[in-house]
């Protein structure tokens, strides 16, 4: 069974999006990057991101990730760290075990260079 299936598949992602996105919007370190975005569109993107890091079916391309972040001024490692931290808190709230959280954080971390366009 894949990690995605073990976590509960699409229903788990849907539950995680709400918790994760709410944390992102409430976090002063990164919330300003989300002030002017369309929330519905953003939720769809977050769902795709979480599906990917959960190991679910996805069509991730580093190019999309690069395009989607390159206009964000001042974006650096601390912002990526914050996102991974909030992702971990989200998973903890959902009752995901530490080992699985570490694995998911690892996948999220693997797109760091794409997000930061380097």
């Amino acid at each position, binding site marked *: 069974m894949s990690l995605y299936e073990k976590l509960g598949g699409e229903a788990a992602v849907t539950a995680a999006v709400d918790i994760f996105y709410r944390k992102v919007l409430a976090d002063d370190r990164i919330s300003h990057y989300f002030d002017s975005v369309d929330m519905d569109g953003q939720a769809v993107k977050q769902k*795709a991101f979480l599906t990917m890091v959960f190991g679910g*079916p996805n069509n991730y391309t580093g190019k999309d990730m690069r395009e989607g972040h390159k206009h964000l001024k001042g974006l650096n490692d601390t912002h990526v760290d914050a996102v991974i931290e909030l992702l971990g808190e989200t998973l903890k709230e959902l009752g995901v075990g530490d080992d699985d959280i570490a694995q998911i954080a690892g996948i999220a971390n693997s797109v760091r260079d794409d997000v930061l366009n380097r």
Partner: protein
Amino acid sequence: MAKLFYNADQLDSTGDVSVLDTLHSAGFLIPSSCRAGLCHACLLRADEGDIPALAQKGLSETEKRQRLFLGCQCFPVTDMKISTPDASRTVQARLLELSMLTQDVMRLRLKADVDWFPGQYTTLWKDASLGRSYSIASHPVRDGFMELHIKRYPDGMLSRWLAEQVHVGHELEISLPRGSCFYTETSSHQPLLLACTGTGLAPLYGVVQDALGQGHQRPIHLFAAAGTPDQLYLVHELRLLEQTYSNFHYYPVCRRNAQPNMQEGDLVELISNRYKDLKGWKVFLCGSPMAVKKLQKKCFLQGASMSDIHADAFESPLARSA
């Protein structure tokens, strides 16, 4: 072998090839992106035929009710007649009634041979290039006519034309109704919070009446905001509804000069102060983009699920009069 009917064409589908791929192979340009059922770029509509469950996985109830499905996840088991949603088809609608709800809000009632869910919107066309979208306040069967609330702007090309040159009995051109702002019975267990500014009341009036008509038992709270009391409308009708249904509450809000039975202040503040925990609520927001966007964020941060918030930001008057 199932057959696909798309526009005037008939295509063979083997069941192990997705509708999206079948259409692409036949040379049709259908937007698509992730091909994993996540991005929803390849949304199509099934006009006839069975939709496999997988093809609607992850779609909202309102999308399912409109028979929308994901082309990349659809492996047909029966013949299907499909179309691209929001096709620019238009129909004729006859103007039954034009009256004023306030000094500058018109009520149009139209007779058109189309179906819709109260709260969806249509586009009304002056000519081939000039159209404006308006939400629908009425029910196709219970009311039998399509009701639109249209704010008149001094320089509004469409609203001025309507006010000055269109008369009862005229045939107008409208697009097929669309949009996901409407009530579904899957919300019957949820309390509803509806908030609007100005003519954002049109879709919400439709949603409220539809919910009550479908026997919604949980609380329904409607906030309608305007600058001053004379800009509020349907006040009498909503008060009557409030007397008839004990679970429905109507809260008129004015920026200034509120009368005794109204609240005075900022809609966003009033709602965020009053509804500290919106977990489990279904929320409908319509009207000025600024208020809708602020409320969408507030309601989400205060517990409503993203998928339970319908936010319909109307174009600004400036964009509308352009």
